[in-house]
């Protein structure tokens, strides 16, 4: 496995202006120091509650906005040498395009109704990234668009239509076709199925998995739906208030979560089976405002196992078991604590009948 992206201490602070002179009076700390490695060819799931900075992370990685601080190293090829490594965090728009990085990074947005221009034909929607990124002849363009359509399971009949003529699932297919048009390496999928129905969701998930294998893509799958992310991704990163609290392979995370917040998230999943009646860890209160996040460990206001050290010192993301990283002061005791209070610690086989 080789890295494709290496993120160190990524920060994004949105200024809040006020007063007559519109001076900066505070900042919303949407991302506050993120360290993450993304391996080539994997699907990394990013989960967390709304407002915790999942989408900001995704947008920072495809450089839809410029991060305030931090480095994003992009390895253009599989061999990990320094000459192929570029820091894309502070590159200018022009440089991004010139170096071909824009073409290699794509994004699929949440709601296909709003991410497709209602006044453009499907052929133009899919051809747009091709036209802006590389010069391509009209005949090649048409062939390529038709090829992309067939790749996502649409046919030639759909070529000359407008987005409103499609159902939600088909629209999301078009958005996926647009994203894979420029032969990208890395795609950020920002809640691609949350606007869709259950039966269509399964179709899109299967399509994405198939495309990942066929085109050897790397995905960052942003979602709040944990069952979906368990299905599609090999590794999971859990975010809370602009920080990553746990990174682990999916199976390991579901079998043995080490952060109390992950426990709360996993036990909160409503399982579509009547046989399982696991006890639920219900967190009190809401997510604090990122305008004024709690000091030290950000989870301490809602954590059931809070100690004095949690209010004083910020925990660092450390590797506990190989490949399993946690940021918690009580990471070694969590399993025991959860066992004592709730009677179970694993969510892997919660719904086996």
């Amino acid at each position: 496995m080789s890295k494709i992206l290496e993120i160190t201490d990524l920060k994004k602070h949105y200024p809040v202006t006020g007063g007559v002179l519109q001076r900066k009076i505070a900042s919303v700390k949407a991302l506050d120091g993120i360290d993450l490695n993304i391996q080539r060819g994997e699907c990394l799931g990013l989960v967390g509650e709304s407002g915790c900075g999942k989408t900001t992370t995704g947008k920072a990685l495809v450089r839809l906005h410029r991060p305030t601080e931090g480095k994003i190293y992009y390895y253009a090829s599989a061999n990990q040498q320094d000459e192929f490594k570029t820091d894309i965090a502070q590159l200018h728009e022009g440089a991004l395009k010139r170096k071909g990085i824009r073409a290699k990074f794509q994004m699929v947005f949440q709601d296909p109704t709003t991410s497709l221009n209602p006044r453009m034909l499907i052929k133009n929607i899919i051809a747009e990234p091709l036209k802006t990124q590389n010069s391509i002849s009209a005949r090649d363009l048409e062939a390529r668009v038709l090829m992309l359509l067939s790749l996502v399971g649409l046919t030639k009949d759909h070529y000359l239509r407008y987005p409103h003529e499609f159902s939600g699932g088909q629209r999301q297919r078009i958005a996926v076709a647009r994203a894979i048009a420029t032969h990208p390496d890395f795609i950020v999928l920002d809640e691609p199925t949350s606007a869709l129905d259950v039966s269509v969701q399964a179709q899109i998930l299967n399509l994405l998995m198939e495309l990942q294998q066929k085109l050897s893509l790397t995905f960052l799958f942003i979602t709040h739906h944990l069952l979906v992310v368990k299905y599609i991704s090999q590794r999971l990163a859990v975010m809370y208030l602009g920080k990553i609290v746990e990174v682990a392979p999916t199976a390991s995370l579901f079998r043995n979560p080490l952060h109390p917040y992950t426990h709360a998230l996993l036990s909160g999943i409503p399982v579509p089976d009547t046989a399982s009646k696991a006890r639920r860890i219900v967190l009190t209160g809401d997510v604090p405002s990122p305008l004024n996040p709690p000091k030290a460990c950000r989870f301490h206001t809602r954590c059931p196992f809070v100690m004095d050290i949690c209010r004083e010192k910020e925990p660092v993301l450390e590797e506990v078991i190989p490949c399993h990283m946690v940021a918690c002061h009580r990471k070694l005791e969590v399993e025991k604590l959860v066992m004592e209070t709730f009677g179970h610690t694993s969510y892997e086989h919660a719904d086996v009948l």
Partner: protein
Amino acid sequence: MTKLVQTIDLITNFYTYEGVVRALDKVNLTIEHGTTFGLVGESGCGKSVTVRSLLRIIQAPGKVEDGEVWFFQNAQQDTEGIELLSQNEKYMQALRGDSISMIFQEPNAALNPIMSIGDQVSESFLFHRKQEMCRQISDTLYSPDCQIFLPVKKLLQPLYRLAAKNTGAWLLKFLSRVPVFKYWDRLLKREALRRSVDIIAKLGISNAEEIVKSYPHNLSGGMKQRIVIAIALACHPVLLIADEATSNLDVTIQAQILELLRELRQKEISSVLLITHDLGVVAETCDRVGVMYAGQLCEVANVKDLFGNPKHPYTQALLHSVPRLSQKGPLQSIEGSVPNLVAPPRGCRFHPRCPHCKEICRKSFPMLVEIGNHHFVACYLWTNLSRD
């Protein structure tokens, strides 16, 4: 088990410029006292339209064409049921939010952004409990330990006595327009606000006194949802309809709200009608489930039977397309898409996507038939009774 709400052959159409959308086609739904009924289905299958038809709040192009809705308020069934579709609008207004109340889908859209939380919650008391509150206030005014400036008290006493008899008296209406005197209902509003604080505090919000003074934009999503639930619960409804009450919330907040609904069901309200597309929520909270597809109910069963032993091909496919914790192998999806209800397929509406489609399925649509243990299915695989 006694019936609470029963719909018989409910038909609702929407007259759009594209044609007549047959949103509901002969829906027969029975909800019993003391149960949580879950209504599941994909978007656009008519879940919301069903409850909106039931409460008669279908908007402009839509119209309830035919059918009956029976409402049996008493659990003992000693009084006769009331047919809601034939009642006048005034009766329905008194019913909505009182006996049957509804939690709407999106808390952002359900709350008025320019009214304070307290005003919005007390609105429901002022509308449904005015007479009762006036009686209570008039009692306290006449009691000897009432600490109000004497002339004011003397003035208010007859007014509240009048209001307790007849809330719509012309004198009160007139006074409400006269400067200074229009403040006669101060006490009433204060009482409504006090009750609002009580109900909000009961939903697990600690600083209810401050919350009632704030506006919707000051609150977070989960908090807003609690306020919407507070409005719905204000008058102790017999039936609480929760229309996607948790679908826009995060997992941890959703867990809080579901826990709250479960507690409330034990203490406060008898029946809940839960509309959702999340099968997980249904499995955890409901006793009985109805599955809808393209404007028709295709399966109604107890929750254990439905999840353990689904009969209708659509229910089976739906359950297979949800990712599980113990998911092995690829997900199965339902091929094709939901039919357009302007021109629904002839016969069984699921037949174009059904793996077991037979000749008869294309011709006539199956009725909802009981196949044992209160398990109803509308499918020819299970019933060989054709309609004609």
